[in-house]
């Protein structure tokens, strides 16, 4: 049978009424658990996997796919509504999405996230079905030096996308980089900056820092303003649905996000959050409404959310074709597949076509179910925001704390949450952007490790960093992205750029 016939057959199985019901149950469970603070997709899948064991293979695969996509989407909902990202890849969503929610546009934000996730999931799943073998070959060409070049590109584009002052942005970035050094150095096993505290050996948890900086810092900031602060959050302004302008501004970011997210997700050391950063930076450069960035630009939700979901499908590429789990979620899925007698690896597509195509068809169905379930719920979710401000922020504080304790039950972690919350508050008061701190914490170790790996493999020869064609191209793009704005500014076109950047958080 051809690829297409296999897929069609899989879809026919997945579209049986009973299986549709399983998909709906899976999506509902996944979303419900994913919405809980501190529970990212990895834990959601781990907790709910046993539920699927009692069904027949087709039914369990379908429910499983539903749980996976549901868990992913549930995390975005809390990011947008409560500013508490449950995983590193929805941090960027919180950035613009929460601003939209507080401007009364929570409905369109949730809708563009849901539809964007659907579109990205759809395209990326087809990508998985038809071009996985090609993509995986490309991904394997990426060695330490190529990854390092990619990180340099991410640093350059992302750090210029945040903050109105380069100096302030860089200061924030370096705070993040400094925090990223804490813990056991992965390459030598030596501890750095842990000061003998065992809890610091694994470094600073990204979600703890993000929730502290975004949610706790924000709450303190609002509380410090007392009654003199801006008026209460407007829950709904205009329609809860996306209007024509929202659609027009969303569809291109969805597609671009998918294009960025899918290949990066397929790279074994890419990481979903890098796709979301790059997508955010891209949208910010291309937008016709730069003044809205930092104040709730719909492109800033649509692009990164699409990138996030596309890269989730992307992680299935190395998983299915190489048996290579590149994220914690993928590792749990691998365990799940083994339960169904599916042994992911290079021979999978040849030995188990029915199950593979069944899985891919299930992903398509689950993706669709997610939309069916969540679009009607948008109206309900945004009512959360009508809660009076003191209650809402008290609730956010509670959820942020619960989430941190839920993910890592330790007193020290809680102390870090509060300490970083205070740092986030201070940075807000003194006008330093928050996001670069989190970006530094995520990208810092990746860049450092890949650089050191590249140099260790070459035994200290620096030229290897430039002699690979891919690395050279990526570094050239990074250099251009850095130099071109400088030239433009020197030619007197700086007003445009500084105006673009002036409307920052």
């Amino acid at each position: 049978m051809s690829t297409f016939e296999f897929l069609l057959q899989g879809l026919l199985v997945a579209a049986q009424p009973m299986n549709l019901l399983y998909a709906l149950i899976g999506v509902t469970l996944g979303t419900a658990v994913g919405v809980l603070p501190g529970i990212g997709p990895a834990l959601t899948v781990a907790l709910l996997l046993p539920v699927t064991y009692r069904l027949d293979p087709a039914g369990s695969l379908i429910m499983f796919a539903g749980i996976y996509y549901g868990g992913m989407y549930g995390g975005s909902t809390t990011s947008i509504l409560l500013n508490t990202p449950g995983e590193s890849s929805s941090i960027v969503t919180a950035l613009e999405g929460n601003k939209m929610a507080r401007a009364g546009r929570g409905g369109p934000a949730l809708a563009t996230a849901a539809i964007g996730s659907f579109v990205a999931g759809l395209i990326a799943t087809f990508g998985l079905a038809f071009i996985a073998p090609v993509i995986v070959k490309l991904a394997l060409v990426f060695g330490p030096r190529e990854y390092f070049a990619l990180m340099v590109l991410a640093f350059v584009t992302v750090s210029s996308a945040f903050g109105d002052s380069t100096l302030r942005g860089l200061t924030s970035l370096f705070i993040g980089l400094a925090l990223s050094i804490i813990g056991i150095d992965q390459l030598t096993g030596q501890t750095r900056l842990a000061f003998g505290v065992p809890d610091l050996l694994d470094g600073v948890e990204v979600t703890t820092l993000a929730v502290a900086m975004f949610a706790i810092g924000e709450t303190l900031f609002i509380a410090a303003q007392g009654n003199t602060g801006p008026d209460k959050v407007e829950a709904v302004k205009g329609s809860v649905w996306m209007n024509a302008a929202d659609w027009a501004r969303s569809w291109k970011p969805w597609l671009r996000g998918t294009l960025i997210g899918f290949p990066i997700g397929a790279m074994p050391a890419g990481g979903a959050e890098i796709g979301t950063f790059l997508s955010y930076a891209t949208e910010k450069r291309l937008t016709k409404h730069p003044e809205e960035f930092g104040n709730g630009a719909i492109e800033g939700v649509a692009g990164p959310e699409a990138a996030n979901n596309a890269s989730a499908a992307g992680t299935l590429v190395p998983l299915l074709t190489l048996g290579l789990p590149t994220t914690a979620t993928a590792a749990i899925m691998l365990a799940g597949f083994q339960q169904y007698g599916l042994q992911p690896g290079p021979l999978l597509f040849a030995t188990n076509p029915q199950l593979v195509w069944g899985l891919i068809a299930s992903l398509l169905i689950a993706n669709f179910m997610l939309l069916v379930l969540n679009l009607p719920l948008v109206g309900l979710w945004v009512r959360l925001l009508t809660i009076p401000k003191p209650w809402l922020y008290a609730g956010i504080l509670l959820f942020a704390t619960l989430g941190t304790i839920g993910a890592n039950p330790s007193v020290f972690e809680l102390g870090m949450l509060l300490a970083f919350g205070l740092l986030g508050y201070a940075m807000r008061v003194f006008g330093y952007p928050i996001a670069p701190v989190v970006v530094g914490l995520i990208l810092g170790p990746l860049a450092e490790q890949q650089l050191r790996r590249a140099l260790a493999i070459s035994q200290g020869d620096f030229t290897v960093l430039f002699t690979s064609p891919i690395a050279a191209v990526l570094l050239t793009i990074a250099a251009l992205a850095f130099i071109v704005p400088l030239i433009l500014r020197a030619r007197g076109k700086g007003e445009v750029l500084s105006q673009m950047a002036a409307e920052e958080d």
Partner: protein
Amino acid sequence: MKHVFIATLLAGSIALPAYAADYTIMAPAAPGGGWDQTARSLQTTMQQEGISKNVQVINVPGAGGTIGLAQFASQQKGNAHALIVGGYVMVGAILTNKAPVTLKDVTPIARLTGENEAIVVPASSPLKSVKDLVEALKKNPGSVSWGGGSAGGVDHITAGLIAKAAGVDPTKINYIAFSGGGEALAAILGAQVTVGISGYGEFEGQVKAGTLRLLATSGEQRIPGTDAPTLKEAGLDVAVQNWRMVAAAPGLTPEQKAAVTADVKKLATSKTWQETLKTKGWQDTYLDGDAFTTQLSKEIAATEAILKDIGLVK
């Protein structure tokens, strides 16, 4: 404190009517890894075999399991229904991190599983056998880059042991640590590193598909279905297995320890568990009682020696 008391009381009152003990299993790692999978397999088996009706798994990730171990030792003292999963990697991590809480502070119950290490090269590699590898190492240890899991872990230790057995200074090996066998696999397939070293399960699919060449495995016996020699057969006196164990809380009475051991033994000999071992590709290395305790202290001493040789423990 009051809340803890009430919570304990509540948990106790819920636990009482159950016909068997309600176990709590700590996986001292994030969801997805080997310990988490072991803990969750234990959970499923205990429930299916009726050993315990209600089993909970908690993840406390961090620092090679030492964070979870410290928390377990202090919070579960005297609790006969708490278990923690651990293994070789934890032994190494305790030594390299100079962890204040060690396996002496808990009650080791039994070794459950073992996984042999595999030494692989990309199919295109000029290295055809362990002999070629040893020659390359002797010529220039730095030119052979080893891709494997975290520094000081079982992969790193095995690489060090191989170098030592080959008469090469183990501090000179060029070990490139990746965040897990998976990420290392990508670097090996892409020929970014010279040799790959990790659990056989990580490489199995690639070896069968012919994209990786299996040079040797690290157990006492060959892995069934492969034609690669063991390291010993290839002339290197090295035998390593990445084993996983289960331990109970400190401060148990001998009767309580015997009861937990009986439950674990019932689990390990059950059909469900044997099937799980098969699907996961884990070897059954069940060992309990004094034999396990002796074996454990031997392993700890041997690991400390090799970590000193590699230069990770001073």
